[in-house]
């Protein structure tokens, strides 16, 4: 009844926008815009790399193998965390506990190995169990109790930080497990071993999100939860699963963190790790598959920021640039992709 007039007009607007792609008049822009949107970050990354490698490299070490290895190795853990972040984001949820989970599992791994002299497999298993349990608690509160995910995970992050302080009491635990330390700092064929761990995690997440029904379901829930329920999806169970997965990935990041650092420092973890991971996830959503949280975009975002910071640091730009650049890149990229996206959707 209320739409008797709207109906007649609705045919023109969206339809016109939808078929605008191959329209000859604006062919140039309409063909370039999607590519620019998809590969914009990649192009920037390449330009930035060439810039630091050729034009602004005072110590002359940016291109050195040692620097490349160092950057790649250092950002493997943030990379895994960023991948942990995108899983709940895909289905429209937030997980702010990932950094804290990484901190806690780093501590638990180091404690099992050093204080209790347990085997490595047990340390890793415990870390994974911790990640699964925290993820399940988050997921239960969000999906079944209906607590806002922001509040749930912010609160849980604080709880975990409290537990870390309680156990570690400020002391750093140094590990000496040879397998773990070589995973953290040795290279294989010139590539830091820890990068293989990141690659393995990335392949698994890529597969889960892009090539399994589970991933498709998460995307559907993120797009329209009501419609997802009405096509028969068990939305609550899937949301719970997304948190369990992000907790598990964060636990893996915790183990890798110990491996990389050779110790578990109770000061490392929490929001120091969470926020850059979320920033990378959002930045990554502007690239490769614009508008979607995706693995390749996320990895690109992590290393874009990583090499930019490395280049700046090598040229003795102060420490303030780290936070400043990360934030500015995020806001600029998201704003730009919103503008391009709006133009793509048509003038309306």
């Amino acid at each position: 009844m209320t739409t008797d007039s709207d109906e007649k007009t609705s045919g023109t607007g969206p339809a016109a926008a939808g078929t605008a792609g191959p329209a000859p008049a604006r062919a140039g822009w309409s063909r370039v815009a999607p590519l620019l949107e998809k590969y914009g970050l990649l192009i920037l990354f390449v330009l930035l790399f060439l810039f630091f490698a050729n034009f602004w490299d005072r110590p002359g070490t940016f291109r050195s193998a040692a620097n490349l290895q160092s950057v790649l190795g250092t950002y493997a853990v943030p990379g895994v965390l960023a991948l942990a972040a995108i899983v709940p984001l895909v289905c429209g949820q937030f997980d702010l506990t990932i950094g804290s989970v990484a901190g806690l599992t780093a501590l638990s791994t180091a404690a099992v190995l050093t204080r209790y002299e347990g085997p490595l497999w047990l340390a890793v298993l415990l870390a994974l169990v911790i990640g699964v349990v925290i993820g399940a608690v988050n997921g239960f509160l969000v999906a079944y109790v209906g607590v806002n995910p922001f509040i749930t995970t912010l609160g849980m992050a604080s709880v975990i930080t409290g537990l870390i302080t309680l156990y570690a009491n400020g002391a750093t635990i140094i590990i000496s497990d040879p397998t773990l330390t070589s995973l953290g700092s040795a290279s294989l064929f010139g590539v830091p071993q820890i990068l293989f761990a990141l690659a393995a995690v990335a392949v698994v997440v890529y597969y889960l999100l892009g090539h399994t029904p589970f991933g498709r379901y998460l995307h559907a829930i993120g797009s329209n939860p009501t419609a997802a329920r009405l096509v028969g999806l068990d939305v609550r169970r899937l949301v719970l699963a997304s948190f369990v997965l992000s907790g598990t990935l964060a636990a893996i990041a915790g183990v890798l963190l110990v491996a990389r650092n050779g110790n578990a420092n109770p000061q490392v973890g929490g929001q120091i790790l969470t926020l850059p991971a979320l920033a990378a996830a959002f930045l990554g959503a502007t690239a490769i598959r614009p508008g979607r949280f995706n693995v390749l975009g996320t990895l690109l975002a992590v290393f874009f920021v990583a090499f930019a910071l490395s280049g700046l640091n090598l040229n003795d730009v102060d420490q303030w640039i780290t936070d400043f650049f990360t934030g500015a890149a995020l806001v600029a990229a998201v704003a730009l992709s919103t503008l391009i996206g709006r133009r793509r959707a048509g003038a309306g």
Partner: protein
Amino acid sequence: MPGGTGTGAPALRVTGLSKTFPGTRALDGVSIEVEPGHVHALLGGNGSGKSTLIKVLAGVHRGDPGGELAVGDAVVASDRTSPTWARAAGVHFVHQDPGVFPTMTVAENMAIGRGFETSRAGAIRWKALRRRTVGLLERFQIRATPDTPVGLLRPADRTMVAIARALQDQEGEHEGVLVLDEPTASLPASEVDVLLAAIRRYAVAGQTIVFVTHRLDEVIAIADRVSVLRDGRHVGTVDVAGRTESDLVEMIFGRPLDEVLPETEPAGARERALEVRGLVAGPLRGVDLVLGRGEVLGVAGLLGSGRTELLTAIFGAMPIAAGEVLLDGRPVRFASVDQAMDAGLGYIPEDRAAEAAFPEMSLRENLSAGQVRRYWRGLRHRHGAEAADARGSIAEYGIRASGDQQPFSTLSGGNQQKAVLARWLRRTPRVLLLDEPTQGVDVSARAEIYAVVRAAVERGTSVIVVTSDFEELARVCDRVVVLAGGRIVAELSGTEMAPHRMTDLAFASTDARRADEPRAADTPSEVAR
């Protein structure tokens, strides 16, 4: 001036207003005058043009050139209306959804939109606001304090708060026009009388009110005069005093009210695909119906009749309080949607954007939503097979798209709906439930959509269609049942399936129900609250 004796100029004057949309003339030379201090009812069937008239008045649409609108001294050409003009002229609107903020207090609701009064330091002057609100509550006789959250008020009072908010800046009642657009449609019966009494009081105090409704008994109860639109034309304006509901029905439909005799025919010799017995859920109060195999059954119901709930209850998306559903003669009870789907049911919801579309996902992904697992073989997702199926569906269902990867949100309404339909028909459901399948869809896409439904029926699918477009039901259905007040009140088939007959039955039964059922307090909707 109770009853408004029409001393001076009319409060609202519409002269020669036409409105043409591409392909249709929604309004055709309509001229209506509304006396000050009257409750002036605006009646008309679906597509009569009353919504369009209201929208032109609100400035949402502009009329065709040549006519004129006047509210008191404010006069505007019919093609120059705008929301700004409507506000300045003092035309205020309160819709079926009163648009109040339930968690905010009455005082805050009053101040929102109008602006909060603040002190020099920028703080809200709560005392002044409270004082003003007390004045408004008294003037509009709403039983509430300024600090009550609006959500705690009874439904009629919430609408009255919306009315008070709309009228708060008027100096007196003798200016401006209050337009109430189906204000009772979503209220429980017990609340309707409270609101109607309030509306009557406001008119007695001198407020001019244009009252749009479907319910003839409400018109008889509170309106002074009534204007009737049919097919975009103004049929006439008459005094309500001394008229009966059948007089009004005759004006609305242009022929006398046939005596309402529900003729219930058995579903015929068809095998029973789906049977519903004594279904109680939400507003439904004991629905019985039978759907034959390969049949298209229409459900004619007005807004609020429970038509949507009937489908969601069958589909397991809404809890059933009592009664049973039989699929192929076997009782079933679906605890969730996927159980209903496994049993061979499909459901296309009314609100496509909110309940069926995955806007950022591709057409391909939208087509295979709900059956993704089918492409999961050998531990990987068969993108190729999915794409091939998507291209097949695009061709089969005549979806116009640049390719199967086109983002869903960029398709037109009709093509989106065809895609949603294709999503379900690919599963060859045994029973397909369609809620307003052609809403927001242009005429040619409508025909295509029903052709697709017909083709599915040929393949053995049985269909229940719910829509408020009764002409459409008459065209596409084998049989139609009329749902009113949570019950099936009539069943029509063959030549009886005339749109006007469905409308008569839906209207008349709604009124009859409200007359013979004073125990509205124990309806499910009341209990639920």
